[in-house]
């Protein structure tokens, strides 16, 4: 920083010209709690002279107040941003840091080492080119190091740098370093990491961080910074892969321009090249590659561009444009690896939104094949995934999507799950391969349809979905409604606990997982019956909004009529016609809705029946009247 202040403008222009050509490297740092990860990054910033004077002054003040290094600078304080973390002395989220050298700009994702924060590590790893694993020279590769290595390899990072830190505490001796190299090398090879570099460092003292250490002449490899400056960046590999452009936005400023905008996920494209649009399979040629800086003759992976085509073909957001010669696969059923990221467990059978590229579809997770113990890498049988657990399962989507397997392309093979009720991002996944049956099963278009069948019965088929607490009066009202409809000559069928739980669903209990599956089956059966032209009445507690919504979306518009049988918990408990509440209160019944399992009140029920104000018979009349108003029961003869 102590340079003379007189360079001519030309010199600065030259400097700018050089620096504009810098490349960008993203890396993630992972380490166990006390391995000195934050110290290492702080040291990198310090050594590359990226700490400003006021930050240094603040760091000195903080170090005195909260530091753990006596009078020395505590570099870790530079990175642990949020107040809560600073007090606990641990990093609890992903923090991004930036520094630059003459060759490269660096984006560092600093992620915590604790097991409960697998979520954050996976997030940081998802965009990284390189992983820097920090190992304490005295302790060697711990369980956490192995877990981080597994996650890094799972997320597709190909280049690993193992920084064996705290060499100053083992007298800079070669033997402990060699022992770690040998042991970790074996492990890395087993999990498919084949590009691993080891460097002995002391983050605290600065050895082999930027400058070669005089204390360790036996180390002939690069310094940490030397490695980062020269390692190959993943984008070069991606440019050689087949061309993929997920369409983000269709740009139509006027009738003469129709452009397809997106960021190129891989490959290269030239004007005139033949392209295919998936999943539709339509083909055309690239007319122009449009950018605000002028048209391009070719564009490469990583660029955000707008394409126009020579033919008017139908393309919308979420489609994937590829070269015609190397199109991606299209499928709606997959095997995938899932990383669960929410406090609420993953429930097989529950529908989630799945976002891949610019496309969002409905996805149903099938039975888990296994989950992975991230410490031992063993496969363990499981029914659900909890926060930070990783498992493999089949996925079924409601629309086919174009994709590449994750190992080939992160951007066309990686996806997130979004909860349909909370809207949170609850998980991430990697597409492994398409299931063959997805290619072979085609939906049979039949000449006879439900409209024709229902017409014959003089009605519109639909589902009356009664939901409410146990003892609310659902079955009573449902029975009355069915009798009244029958008396009107309508064709109905009642599904309730008695005919479902004892037969079709007798294998299911009352855990959340089983409740979801119970409702899924009921909804599917109801759908078949609607297709048969019937008015289906269901009477199940169906406590979760997500499942009711799933049932609603199985049906066509107007077919799903949600009826909220609204009885306050106190009233239902007082009635307690089956004595269930008493048992639940005594702890004899687990997972009882309203007691130790939640009931999510409907937000958009078509019919709301308050049983404290309306007797069962009057409630049934109300429902039948409403069906008449909706034209479900046709003209009453």
């Amino acid at each position, binding site marked *: *920083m102590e*340079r003379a202040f007189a*360079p001519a*403008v030309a010199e*600065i*222009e030259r*400097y*700018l010209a050089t620096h*504009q050509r*810098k*490349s*960008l490297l993203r890396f993630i740092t992972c380490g166990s709690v006390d391995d000195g990860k934050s110290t290492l990054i702080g040291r990198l910033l310090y050594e590359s002279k990226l700490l*400003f*004077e*006021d*930050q240094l002054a603040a760091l000195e003040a*903080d170090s005195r107040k909260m530091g753990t290094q006596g009078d020395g600078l505590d570099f870790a304080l530079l*990175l642990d*941003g*949020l107040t*809560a973390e*600073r007090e606990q002395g641990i990093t609890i*989220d*992903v923090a*991004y*840091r930036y520094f*630059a050298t003459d060759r*490269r700009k660096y984006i560092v994702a600093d992620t915590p080492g604790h097991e409960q924060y697998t979520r*954050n590590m*996976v*997030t940081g790893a998802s*965009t990284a080119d390189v992983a820097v694993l920090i190992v304490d020279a005295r302790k060697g590769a711990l369980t956490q190091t192995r877990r981080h290595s597994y996650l890094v390899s799972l997320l597709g990072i190909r280049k690993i740098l193992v920084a064996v830190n705290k060499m100053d505490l083992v007298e800079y001796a070669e033997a402990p370093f060699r022992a770690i190299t040998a042991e970790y090398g074996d492990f890395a090879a087993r999990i498919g990491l084949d590009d691993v570099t080891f460097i002995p460092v002391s983050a605290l003292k600065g050895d082999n961080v930027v400058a070669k250490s005089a204390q360790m002449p036996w180390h002939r490899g690069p310094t940490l910074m030397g490695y980062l400056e020269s390692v190959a*960046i993943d*984008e070069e590999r991606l440019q050689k892969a087949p061309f993929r452009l997920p369409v*983000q*936005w269709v*740009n139509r*400023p006027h009738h003469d321009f129709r452009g397809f*905008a*997106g*960021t190129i996920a891989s490959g290269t494209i030239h004007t005139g090249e033949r392209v295919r649009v998936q999943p539709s399979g339509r083909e055309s040629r690239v007319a122009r590659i*449009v*950018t*605000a*800086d002028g048209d391009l003759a070719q564009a*490469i992976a*990583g*660029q*955000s561009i707008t394409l126009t085509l020579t033919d008017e073909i139908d393309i919308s*957001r979420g489609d994937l444009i590829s070269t015609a010669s190397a199109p991606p696969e299209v499928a709606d059923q997959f095997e995938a690896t899932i990383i669960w990221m929410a406090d609420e467990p993953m429930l097989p059978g529950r529908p989630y939104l799945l*976002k891949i590229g*610019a496309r969002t579809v409905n996805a149903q997770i099938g039975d888990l094949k296994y989950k992975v113990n991230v410490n031992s890498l063993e496969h363990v049988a499981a029914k659900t995934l909890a926060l930070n657990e990783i498992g493999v399962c089949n996925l079924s989507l409601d629309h086919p999507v174009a994709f590449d397997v994750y190992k080939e392309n992160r*951007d066309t093979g*990686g996806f*997130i799950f*979004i909860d349909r009720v909370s*809207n*949170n*991002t609850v998980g*991430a996944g990697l597409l492994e391969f398409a299931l063959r049956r997805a290619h072979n099963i085609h939906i049979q278009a039949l000449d006879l349809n439900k409209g024709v069948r229902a017409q014959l019965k003089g009605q519109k088929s639909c589902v009356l979905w009664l939901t409410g607490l146990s003892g609310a009066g659902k079955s009573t009202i449902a029975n009355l409604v069915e009798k009244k409809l029958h008396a009107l000559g309508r064709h109905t069928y009642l599904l309730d606990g008695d005919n479902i739980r004892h037969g079709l669903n007798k294998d299911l209990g009352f855990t959340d997982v089983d409740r979801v599956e119970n409702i899924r089956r009921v909804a599917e059966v109801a759908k078949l019956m609607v297709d048969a032209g019937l008015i289906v009445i269901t009477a199940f507690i169906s406590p979760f909004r997500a499942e009711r919504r799933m049932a609603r979306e199985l049906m066509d518009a107007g077919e799903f009529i949600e009826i909220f049988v609204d009885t306050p918990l106190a009233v239902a408990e007082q009635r307690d016609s089956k004595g269930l509440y008493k048992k639940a209160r005594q702890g004899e019944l687990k997972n009882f809705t309203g007691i130790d399992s939640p009931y999510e009140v409907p937000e958009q029920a078509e019919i709301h029946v308050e049983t404290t104000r309306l007797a069962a018979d009057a409630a049934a009349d109300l429902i039948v009247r409403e069906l008449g108003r909706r034209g479900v029961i046709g003209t009453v003869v």
Partner: protein
Amino acid sequence: MALTYLQRLEAESIHIIREVVAETDNPVMLYSIGKDSAVMLHLAIKAFFPARPPFPLLHVDTTWKFRDMYAFRDRRAAEVGMKLIVHVNPEGLAMNINPFTHGSAVHTDVMKTQGLRQALDKYGFDAAFGGARRDEEKSRAKERIFSFRSAQHRWDPKTQRPELWHLYNARKHKGESLRVFPLSNWTELDVWQYIHLQDIPIVPLYFARERPVVERDGTLIMVDDERMPLRDGEVPMLRKVRFRTLGCYPLTGAIESDADTLPAIVQEMLLAKTSERQGRVIDYDAAGSMEKKKVEGYF
């Protein structure tokens, strides 16, 4: 052939801006007139070229910006042909809230934090682009690019959505909103290099010129108009100064400088010994002050 780091940052920001427009109902771009806003606006124009960006600009005004900023704002909005909405907190205006009598904390809270919330509610914007960068301040380093806000505009650092690959989740319930930061991964130096490379217009106050200033509590404050009360013995003097960040003129410290061209500014940056937020009086509170402000709804 590798893209340069500026090309990659540019592509990432364009991707983010398009994603917001595709996935939200009524987005708006916060335009604070500074260099980061200038870059963000430039990227928005690129993202939708040859169409115009399909959203308006919003300036939450405190009435205490530099005169040069107002002139630049109106000229720029006209040039790019985008709608510009200016919102001033009417209650703050009625109470004559100003940085001199009420101090920077109250002024910022009423005119900026509350003003922003009012404007978002008034126009029903469900997503707002902001020019904040993660290198500015420690709590920003952990904020997501898509930052989710409750219906009360609060930020909860503990419930941030994970952001993997280039997949952003913009879904929300009615009343909830998103703040989106397309420049998250840019540093101050990146911004200047990009302005230089792309020849992006910026407010002249960034360039050194002789301006009337007084030295107050160790900070050089420009006497931009007659509303500035001078203390006993304070006489505005002409100094060659420029600004590294722009805000309300009474709260923005000038630095003495000869840098009157972009290369000179970049050169000064490279030799700088203090980070840019030092010029902002509002950051002088205790550690964690920005985090507190953000939890309450400050950008």
